[in-house]
Each structure stands twice: as structure tokens, then as C-alpha cells.
């Protein structure tokens, strides 16, 4: 069967499966409430008096840290637990099609969640004159960030049949990938590195693997090739690793 046909079929099934579970709706409500709370109350959106969404997007890396692993944990862990992985992988589909189909379905779900925050955008439109290009770039950057977190979650989900373990490991890895480039952490590490043999380059190097600098630069409205390349290669790497893990672990 045509490559995209199978991927599409698996994509549709998985996306429908998200919405057939009450967990998805709980997830959406929690996500929307958290982002709204953080933007308006904690972020003091009205007090700032700026018609831009920086105070909205600012929180996404932290919200995603908890919610994206929660959306990802069931993707492969549940298949292995229920035994349906044996059904799926004895059909005429390649492992690649299955991995892609599921990943894209989860990414679509997260994109829908992001799209549902449009009231915040409408608020800024009503209250002022936001730079629409920057706002759209912001959403785009957020979608990419969600995809990056998701790819980590897909990998951890493939490594275990226990969803909770998948969630926890995924959060830990994402936290590391986030903090490695988070200014308070990098500033501290740079100072330490300077004191111990001018190793700032090492700190900067590790920081460049982090989500944070790449997310920030897109938030400023600049969609640079370097950042796109970062997200693409991270996602590809994680999905490739998922392929390896699944190939080696099908039976158990």
C-alpha cells in the first residue's frame, strides 16, 4: 500500500482515539486554564499594557514540560500493554509509517490545543494593535516546541509499557533539555566554567542543544534556518531512536 495511505490511516485512528477518551478533554481544559492563569494573573498581562503575546508564550516551555509528556505517554506504552502492537506490526505497514502516524496525530492534537487559545489572541487584537506577524511566529514557534517535547515523549513511551514511567522519564529529559539553555542556569554555569579553566565554550555548546534559545529567537519574530534545523534534527533523531527501540523490543 502507498506509504502515505498507511501513515494517514494510523494518524486518523490515533487522533480519533485521543478525542474518544475523556482524558483528552481534561487535558485541553487544564492546558487552557493554566495558560490563561499564567498569562493574565501571574504574567500581569493587563498591568503590562502591551498588546503583544510575549507574556502568553513565555510560559509555554514550562506548561509543555508537564502536559506534552502526558499526551505522549500512551502512544506506544498502551499498545504494548494491550498487545495491539502485535496486531499493528503484523499488518502490511512499516514501523516508520506507524511511528510517523502516531507522532503526527499527537502533534495535531497539541496544535489543536494551541489553536484553542485564540481568545487570548482576540483579546490583544481588541485591546490594541499587536504585530500579527510576530504573534503568528510565536504560535509557529510554540507548535515546533510542542513537537520537540513530543518526540522525546514518543521515545520514552516506546521504551516502556508503563505510562507513568514514560511520563516521568520524559519530563526529566525535557527538563534537562530546557534548563541547559535557560539563562539563569547558563549564567551560573558560565561563571563556574570561567573559574575552572575557561570552559565557557562547553557551557555554550551544551546550551545550544537546549529548547530555550531556539524557542526564544522565534518568539522575537525571527524564524531562522538554524532554529528550524535544530527542531527538525531533534525530532528526527528522537523518532529514529524510537524506531531502533521498537525494533529491538517488540516481543517483551
Amino acid at each position: 500500500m502507498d506509504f502515505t495511505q498507511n501513515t494517514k490511516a494510523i494518524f486518523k485512528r490515533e487522533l480519533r482515539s485521543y478525542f474518544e477518551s475523556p482524558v483528552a478533554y481534561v487535558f485541553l481544559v487544564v492546558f487552557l486554564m493554566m495558560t490563561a492563569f499564567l498569562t493574565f494573573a501571574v504574567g500581569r498581562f493587563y498591568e503590562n499594557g502591551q498588546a503583544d503575546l510575549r507574556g502568553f508564550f513565555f510560559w509555554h516551555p514550562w506548561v509543555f514540560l508537564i502536559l506534552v509528556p502526558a499526551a505522549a505517554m500512551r502512544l506506544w506504552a498502551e499498545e504494548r500493554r494491550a498487545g495491539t502492537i502485535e496486531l499493528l506490526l503484523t499488518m502490511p505497514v512499516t514501523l516508520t509509517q506507524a511511528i510517523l502516524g502516531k507522532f503526527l496525530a499527537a502533534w495535531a492534537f497539541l496544535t489543536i490545543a494551541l489553536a484553542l487559545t485564540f481568545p487570548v489572541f482576540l483579546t490583544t487584537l481588541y485591546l490594541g494593535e499587536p504585530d500579527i506577524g510576530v504573534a503568528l511566529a510565536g504560535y509557529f514557534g510554540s507548535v515546533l516546541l510542542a513537537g520537540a517535547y513530543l518526540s522525546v515523549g514518543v521515545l520514552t513511551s516506546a521504551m516502556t509499557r508503563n505510562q507513568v514511567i514514560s511520563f516521568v522519564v520524559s519530563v526529566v529529559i525535557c527538563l534537562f533539555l530546557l534548563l541547559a539553555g535557560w539563562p539563569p542556569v547558563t549564567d551560573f554555569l558560565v561563571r563556574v566554567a570561567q573559574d575552572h579553566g575557561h570552559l565557557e565554550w562547553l557551557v555554550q555548546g551544551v546550551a545550544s542543544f537546549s529548547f530555550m534559545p531556539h524557542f526564544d529567537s522565534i518568539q522575537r519574530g525571527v524564524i531562522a534556518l538554524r532554529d528550524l534545523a535544530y527542531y527538525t534534527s531533534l525530532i528526527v533523531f528522537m523518532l529514529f531512536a524510537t524506531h531502533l527501540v521498537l525494533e529491538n523490543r517488540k516481543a517483551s
Partner: protein
Amino acid sequence: MLEIKELHKQFGSLHAVKGISFTVEKGEVLGFLGPNGAGKSTTMRMITGFLPPTSGTAIINGHDVVADPIAAKKETGYLPENAPVYSDMTVRAFLSFVAEIRGYSGAERLRRVDAAIESAHLEKVRNQTVSTLSKGYKQRVCFAQAILHDPPILIMDEPTDGLDPNQKQVVRSMIREMASRKVIVVSTHILEEVEAICTRAIIISSGKLVANGTPAELKTRCACHGAVELVFDRASDAMASDLRLLSSASRVESRDNSFTLFPKDPGRLLADVTDLVRQRNWHPTGLRVIEGRLEDVFHDLTLGEETVRKAG
């Protein structure tokens, strides 16, 4: 046609499948027997492409499952152990998804789904969510997905496991209906099922194939095949010693008022016994020839005891 060639599977240091080979032609229903842990499911998983073999391969209608897995999987229908199904979907939606993966679209897809629902007697539950179904129905849903694309090769791992006797009959009759048009491999623990639906059976023990033949042939491998049972109102010791003198009997067991003579030479045993009965003017109340039992053959072959008579 299904050809299994020297399949081996090692999980680390555990050699689970040790060189299994066999062939199944269209019209045959092959029973796959063996104790738990013998390697039946592992072998089936290699045939269906779920597990890569450590060495060897399966050729499914000419397609090598290792070299060309997609083509091989297209020709295979598989009912895995425990009949897994996506439990959050309705029966119809699940079968529709399977039909889509199998390459059907539009009206053809609807037709195939309806046909599968009918064959598996799922009309009553077509719009029910799978998680709400009983075990028997879940098994039939998984069965439906296995036959949906009318595959020439059907592999079923314990298809009647956990079903009540009526449900077992339903599944067996479904298999019998399709038998002439397909190659079917059924793994089972239920020996009466082997006699009911299988044209041939193989026995696997500790990863090795230890028997391959029709149920009738396998039964002849039992030490008790062709044994003669004599029942009297009142047996005497004299009868016992006379019977023990028969050269065509390897051993005579006596219990209450009956004797069981195990054959050294089954062709002659019955004749010798009836001659003796006539000569001594005995009046037995019962005389019968015992057909071999699969249980005994299974037991002997899988526990390695040497009470099995060599074939031929």
C-alpha cells in the same frame, strides 16, 4: 502455500526455537501443539513478521517474510494470543481501520467490513465499543480482522482460548467453513479440537518439532494404540497367566475384572486374543480395541519418555 524453513530464535542466551521446518498446503488445517513455553507463539510471531528470526525464514505464498515483509503480511491474516483489539473503538470503526490498512476504500471497504461482521456473527454488536464486549465477542472481533481481506494464509494463536463450549463451536465451524480455500495454522491446547478441525498436527517441545502427521497417524504412535481390553464378570489368575503368555502382547495390565493387553505386534494381537478366548471357552462381557489417544502421544513426546513406539 506456507513454508517454514529452519526457524531459530534466541532471546539472549535462551534458545527458544531450535530449527523448526514444515510445510502447509492449501486446504490443510495444521494444528500446532505443544506445552506452554515450547515456542509455539514465538514461532507464529516469526511467521507473521512480528519477531525477526535469529535465522531461517517463512515463505508465505512465495514471499519471504524476512526479505519482503510487507508483501508477506499482505497475504497473511493473524489472530494473536489474547486477541488484542483497540478497545476504545467501536467494532465497525475498528474493522474499518483494518480495512483501510489492508488497502480498501470506498464501497469496497464497506462491503468487506460488512462481510467480516457477518462471517464472525458480530451483527448484534457492530456499533458497540470493544471495551464493553465479552471475551467471546472480543475474540470474534479479532477473528474478523484476521479474515477481512480474505487472506490465503491464516495463522491463529489459541482462537478458542477462554471461550465457553458454545462459542468454541462457533469458532470451530468458522474455521471449517474456510478450510478448503486457505492454509490455516491453529495453535491449541485442546486435543479434541485437533481431532475436530485439523487435517494435520505438529507437536513442538522445547523449541523442537517432535511430531508431524495426521491425527490418526499420531495416535498410532501411542503405546496403547491397538491395545485390547478384555472385561469379565469374574476374572481369574489362570486367565491372567494365559494372557501373559501371548507373544504378541508386550505387557498385560489387570484391574478389577478387566485386562488390558499392550501390543508388541498390534496386527496379530486381536486375533491371538480372540483365538485364546475361543480355545479356553471364556465368556468375556466386553472386548474392544483401543485407539491411541493424543493425550498420551503428547505426554510421551513432550516429557521425553521412551514409551512411544517408533513409527513403522
